[in-house]
């Protein structure tokens, strides 16, 4: 059979109008993500800007809030960098939990909740990810959190080269990694906007004399470095102490060394370019894994996925997977580990201890859900 499509001016106008409508709806959907995440820190936190540490990012999309709380007693300084990869929600949410609950009694706590703020304003193409997800709060209401992309938004940094040559090491990486905050350290004051942002974070670590610095992440359940602590050699003894405590609580965890020849990553470059003890941690996030099935808000929050159950039965996963991997469990893992690190810090250096109160423990977060400890949005 032979169909012939007959077009006229009228059909052309209709098609044009329809494409305008699609563009309008899509544009509205895209731009709806261009809002900064609202957080409600306890009043003890003092708010600064990342550009206070490197003025080169002032007035750019890389600038963002930095929250600092100082205890009565002198002690160590800890940086909690969350949201390096905005498609790893347990990271950002752990930062928010600390911001909205922490009472620092000894030492100083610095929290950056949306480290790659330029990745929170878009989704990864062809991933089918939701633009945000809802967490149920203690009063039964729901609060929305953003779900973004691993890389900086191309409206701020485009195009990237085919090959990204990491400036300080000469290491070759895939071109898109130039937009990946955790491949850009130690950063450059005159580089791309993501490199400048990395530089500002390294400047903050130097200027605030951060003793212990966390970079929180999530990884695919099928990736070998998951439910893991990655430590620079300077942080290794402390990390070993904490790993043992976590393991003694019955929480599966692995300790991995930071490869000396893998450049651009926080756990390597923070240690090599500053005096801090860097720690990177990973939890298992089915919504970013390659084996996932239907991708929606529910998957982000519950981690329930039939394909992952099957993969676990086949022995292909690096996390114990009993049909789900709730976001609350993942936040509980990060929170518990961060607290243990801070508690153990004084055993490495007596004067650098840190005491933080008000943070719920592992069991509480798992049982009540992380939303129970977050402020109501208004």
């Amino acid at each position, binding site marked *: 059979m032979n169909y012939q499509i007959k077009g006229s001016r009228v059909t052309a106008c209709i098609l044009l109008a329809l494409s305008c409508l699609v563009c309008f709806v899509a544009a509205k959907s895209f731009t709806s993500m261009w809002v900064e995440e609202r957080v409600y820190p306890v009043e003890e936190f003092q708010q600064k800007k990342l550009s206070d540490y490197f003025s080169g990012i002032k007035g750019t999309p890389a600038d963002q809030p930095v929250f600092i709380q100082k205890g009565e007693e002198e002690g160590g300084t800890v940086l909690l960098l969350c949201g390096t990869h905005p498609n790893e929600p347990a990271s950002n949410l752990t930062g928010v939990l600390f911001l909205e609950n922490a009472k620092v009694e000894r030492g100083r706590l610095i929290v950056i909740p949306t480290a790659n703020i330029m990745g929170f304003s878009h989704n990864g193409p062809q991933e089918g990810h939701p633009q945000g997800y809802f967490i149920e709060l203690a009063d039964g209401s729901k609060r929305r959190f953003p779900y973004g992309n691993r890389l900086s938004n191309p409206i701020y940094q485009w195009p990237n080269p085919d090959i990204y040559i990491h400036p300080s090491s000469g290491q070759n990486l895939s071109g898109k990694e130039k937009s990946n905050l955790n491949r850009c350290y130690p950063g450059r004051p005159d580089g791309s906007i993501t490199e400048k942002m990395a530089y500002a974070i390294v400047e903050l670590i130097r200027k605030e004399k951060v003793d212990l610095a966390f970079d929180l992440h999530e990884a695919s359940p099928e990736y*070998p*470095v998951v*439910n893991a602590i*990655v*430590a620079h050699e300077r942080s*290794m*003894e402390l*990390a*070993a*102490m904490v*790993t*043992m*405590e976590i*393991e*003694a609580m*019955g929480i*599966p*965890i*692995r*300790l*991995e*060394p*930071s*490869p*000396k*020849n*893998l450049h651009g990553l926080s756990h390597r470059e923070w240690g090599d370019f500053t005096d801090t003890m860097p720690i990177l941690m990973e939890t298992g996030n089915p919504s970013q894994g390659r084996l996932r099935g239907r991708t929606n808000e529910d998957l982000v929050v519950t981690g329930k996925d039939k394909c992952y159950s099957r993969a676990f039965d086949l022995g292909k996963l*690096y996390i114990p997977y009993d049909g789900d991997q709730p976001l609350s469990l993942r936040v509980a893992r990060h929170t518990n580990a961060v607290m243990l690190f801070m508690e153990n810090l004084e055993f490495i250096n007596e004067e650098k201890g840190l005491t933080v109160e008000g943070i719920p423990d592992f069991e509480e977060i798992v049982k009540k859900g992380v939303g129970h400890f977050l402020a109501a949005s208004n």
Partner: protein
Amino acid sequence: MRTKKIVVGLMALMFLFLTGCAWAGDIALTSIGQSSDSMMVKVVLKKMKVTPDTDNLMKAEDLEGKDILIAVVGGSSKGLGAAGIDKDQENQRATDLLSAARDKGIRVLIMHVGGAGRRGKLSDAFIVTAVPFADELIVVEGANEDGLFDSLMEGKDITIRVVPNVRSTSEPLKEVLSLWGMVGL
């Protein structure tokens, strides 16, 4: 009078020598598979006031003057990458080191502290290499569910010392080191 003082002094020295002070540095600690699990064992030993000579890339010649070798087994691709070696090179180093220890009469304690998480293709290759050299074996629960360690120890008169987690390896560590003549733990 003076001779008496010297004799007493010498006896005191002998006593110290025999009671463990001379043990400092006589224990070697290494990783087989380049995971950081050996670091955790080092921390446990540190709490017991034992400071071993630690080198995750220890070679046969580094065993000079050592009485005990503690080898912590567990594979890590990140660790191998960090050391700039591959699985086969690491397995060869393990075989050379452990054979040398056996030839020199150095007692070998093999430890696997990573539980179920440190099993799988990579780790198993190192377990199969190292465990047959064990004079004593400490394993954290979860790793021997399929009986791999039992099968590797078959025919040997050694009981596997199983503990629930890394922290509780301090008990069997104390037992083994005392058994091998280390006192004052």
